[in-house]
């Protein structure tokens, strides 16, 4: 270490490499080393953003509606925002000479009249040009560790598949509210709305994955519940990495069992021993 340290300090006196595009990444040193071991290196920090309009009044449900009602404009806005963000991320990746983007952080914001999706990740490229992965850059929200494990198991990430659905739950009638005041009952209007939203969103995500020629979707993140500004609207948004098997068969990782002996010390206060 001391030799490396001296070399590092000495390097500060020499000029940096010129003529090459500076590499930027949000990866930790562990991730960079792991990525290097898998034959890749970071190329650039890239982002993709899309803000879609949700037309005025979309979250209003006509009074007296009998059952749950889908809010199609909101659903389309979120799904389209995911698509556009991914495309912009790919475009930036290609410009930086990357073959894919790993560790994508996904931010989703739903306002009364807009839906915003932001992707931020690190574009990576193969170290050896011969190893170049041709074609469309892949996009994955898997960490570098998961990306390396996935490849070792014979799979490759393709894209972020996303699905969304917004369903309005009809208000209970006055008679129903009064009758249920002192009871523990299931609020079937909410249950049904959430169930409908879940079915629709997961189906959309599956369709996206099939469209990308994927065999499945892994590491799915789910965001569900009533919207902050429209509590009677139940949202279900899900997204994950669409993956495809590239090896002939799935390669078993067969992890080794270890018993670590570096557990955290048990907390105690010295005063408790008095």
């Amino acid at each position, binding site marked *: *270490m001391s030799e*490396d340290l*001296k*070399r*590092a*300090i*000495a*390097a*500060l*006196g020499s*000029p*940096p*490499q*010129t*003529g*090459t595009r*500076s*590499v*930027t*990444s*949000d*990866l*930790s*040193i*562990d991730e*960079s*080393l*792991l990525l*290097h*071991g898998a034959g890749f290196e970071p190329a650039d*920090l890239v*982002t993709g*953003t*899309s*803000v*879609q*309009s*949700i*037309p*005025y*009044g979309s979250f209003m449900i006509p009074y007296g509606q009998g059952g749950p009602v889908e809010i199609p404009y909101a659903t*389309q*806005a979120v799904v389209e925002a995911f698509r*556009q963000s991914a495309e*912009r991320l790919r475009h930036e990746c290609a410009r930086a000479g990357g073959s894919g983007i790993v560790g994508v952080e996904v931010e989703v914001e739903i306002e009364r*009249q*807009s839906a*915003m999706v*932001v992707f*931020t990740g690190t574009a990576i490229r193969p170290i050896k040009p011969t190893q170049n992965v041709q074609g469309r850059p892949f996009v994955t929200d898997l960490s570098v560790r998961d990306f*390396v*494990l996935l490849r*070792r198991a014979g799979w490759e990430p393709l894209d972020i598949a996303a699905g969304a659905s917004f369903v309005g739950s009809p208000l209970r009638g006055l008679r129903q509210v009064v009758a249920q005041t002192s009871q523990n009952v299931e609020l079937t209007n909410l249950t049904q709305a959430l169930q409908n939203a879940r079915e629709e969103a997961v189906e959309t995500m599956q369709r996206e994955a099939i469209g990308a020629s994927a065999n499945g979707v892994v590491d799915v993140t789910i965001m569900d519940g009533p919207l902050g500004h429209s509590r009677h609207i139940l949202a279900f948004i899900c997204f994950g990495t669409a993956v495809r098997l590239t090896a002939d068969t799935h390669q078993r990782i*067969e*992890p*080794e*069992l*270890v*018993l*670590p002996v570096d557990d955290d010390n048990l907390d105690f206060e010295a005063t408790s021993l008095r």
Partner: protein
Amino acid sequence: MQGNAFSGYRQSSGYYEQFQCPHGFVSNEHRLYGTNYEQTWIEEAWTTAYSGAFARLLDEAKRLGAHGVIGVVERTAHHPESTAYEFSLSGTAVGVEGIAPPATPFTTFLAGQKLNKLIEAGFAPVSIALSLVSIGVYPSCVTEYQLNGGSWAWGGVPSGEIDQLSRAHEAARSTAREYVRRQLAGDALHAAHLSVASGEAQGGPQIEATLTGNRVRRFKDFETIPPPRPVLRLVDQ
């Protein structure tokens, strides 16, 4: 070791994009165009504050004969009532035995294990790198309708992308990366963190993107690590 600085606003130019109204003249109240503009006076205030704090940090490190400052922590406070930014940087000055200090001490947000691993991996810490970009949005009529509702050509408000806002968000993020890239001068940026805050100001959305990271210089090639062995830890949660 600490450096502090305050700075006020100053106006100049920067990123600018105009979005025309597709309707032509409708009324005096109807907006004929919208604009996205970089609020460079805010950025310059921030840059002045940051540069001042950073220079004081380096001066103090040099006076101590340090080789570098590790574990740097930055704090920014905005004082809207006085239109000023307060910027503070603090870290631990360190020395290395057996070698003369560099002309300019290195600075890094890293410390401990992470710094150790960075050097063992063949990277020398050069300096911290930061940038702030502030984009203001003066909405066009279409953006205004899309964001706040209202009539649109007798057929309702259009769905679809809010181009002006998407462009503003893209510009904030890409400009922040470009400004840091200019500081790198061929070196690499490691462990970057991009944070974005948005709010309302001066009649429209305002977006502020801050990018922080460690400027590092490679002094030896990566030694490829052997493929790690997958393990399952037998630990109670």
